[in-house]
């Protein structure tokens, strides 16, 4: 009984993951500028990969600890790396899509000069 439930749960999780991965891919094709694409790529793939890996962990016996560890690691690193990419590209002078309004970064005039925000 438990196996059946776990199997269904795993399948559903994998389906959700695959759907979000598809959405991420679609977003990378359709969205206009770097920041939007990055958002689509990261947000969708984070959820997609995490739920896929947990689903696989539920389906295959004994893989759950590994897949949970994988998911935690992905949750920690994936957003940070895309945050770093976005920040670096903004600083390097990549202009956001003109429909992006308001440009919070420009408005708040964030201190990028290197005088430390926090030490």
């Amino acid at each position, binding site marked *: 009984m438990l196996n059946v439930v776990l199997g269904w749960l795993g399948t559903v999780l994998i389906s959700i993951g695959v759907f979000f991965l598809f959405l991420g891919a679609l977003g990378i094709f359709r969205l206009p500028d770097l920041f939007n694409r990055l958002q689509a790529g990261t947000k969708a793939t984070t959820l997609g990969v995490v739920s896929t890996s947990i689903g696989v962990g539920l389906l295959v016996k004994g893989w759950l600890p590994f897949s949970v560890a994988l998911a*935690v*690691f992905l949750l*920690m*690193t994936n957003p*940070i790396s895309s*945050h*770093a990419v976005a920040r670096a590209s903004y600083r390097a002078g990549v202009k956001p899509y003109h429909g992006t309004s308001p440009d919070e970064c420009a408005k708040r005039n964030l201190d990028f000069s290197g*005088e430390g*925000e*926090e030490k």
Partner: protein
Amino acid sequence: MKNDTPKVFKSIFALFVVAIFMIGLFYAFVSMPKGWGVNVNNRVSRLYILKNVRTATRLLDSGKFFAKGMKPLRAEVPYKPIKFKKTANLEDGAANVVTSIVVDYRGFDTLGEVTVLFLAASGVMMLLFGKRVKPKRKKTEPSLIMYVGTRIAFAVIFLFGIYIFVHGHLTPGGGFPGGAVIASGILGLFLGRNGYTPNHAGLKVFESLSGIAFVIIGLIGLFSVKSFLANFLPTGIIGNLYSAGFISLIYIAIGMKVGSELAAVVDSMIGDTKEEWS
């Protein structure tokens, strides 16, 4: 410096050299016997284990195998055929066969490889040696997210690196990848905060001590089993954490060494130095 050779000639020459090389390689592989690999009948193990070792001991005792005028070598150490199947199914007890080749059979090579890495790191540090100066241009301060995130990720990466080299004799991996993983975690720390400096003296001490540990393990083998880098510990039951003799010890030493060395290389590359010659 200006180079007047036309580009076309250069390209033609390069193509010529590459073509010769490729033709040679192609010819070499075509002329290889069928099977694309080692001729199994001539394999080392067959030649020496299945056919010869039994008779070898006898012939060695009679001294027939030595050339005239040559004293028998290893006269004082009697020739012992290797006993396979000492452990469950492998002769040195490592579940990961690659590891037993790398550390046990060819441990001397591995010591050499570690030395190569050590020397490369030493060379980089020697070239970039100098007084530390503050960078003239101000660097961008990474955001808070990076700062916190890299620190948390570092713990996980560090743990993973340690796992890789401690389980080197059980699962794929070993000292080199483990050390590299640890070093990449430290690289993340560099990215996370400006002016992050690891403890230089600590890195140096770590590097030296782990290298010394490797050589001393070898020397213990020399003085206990009379052979440098010999496995002097019991091999245990295959698949256990405490098995395979000294392989895990050596992998721990290698992992610490590689990790601290690569971290030191990254550190000396990132830091700005000014040359000074007294």
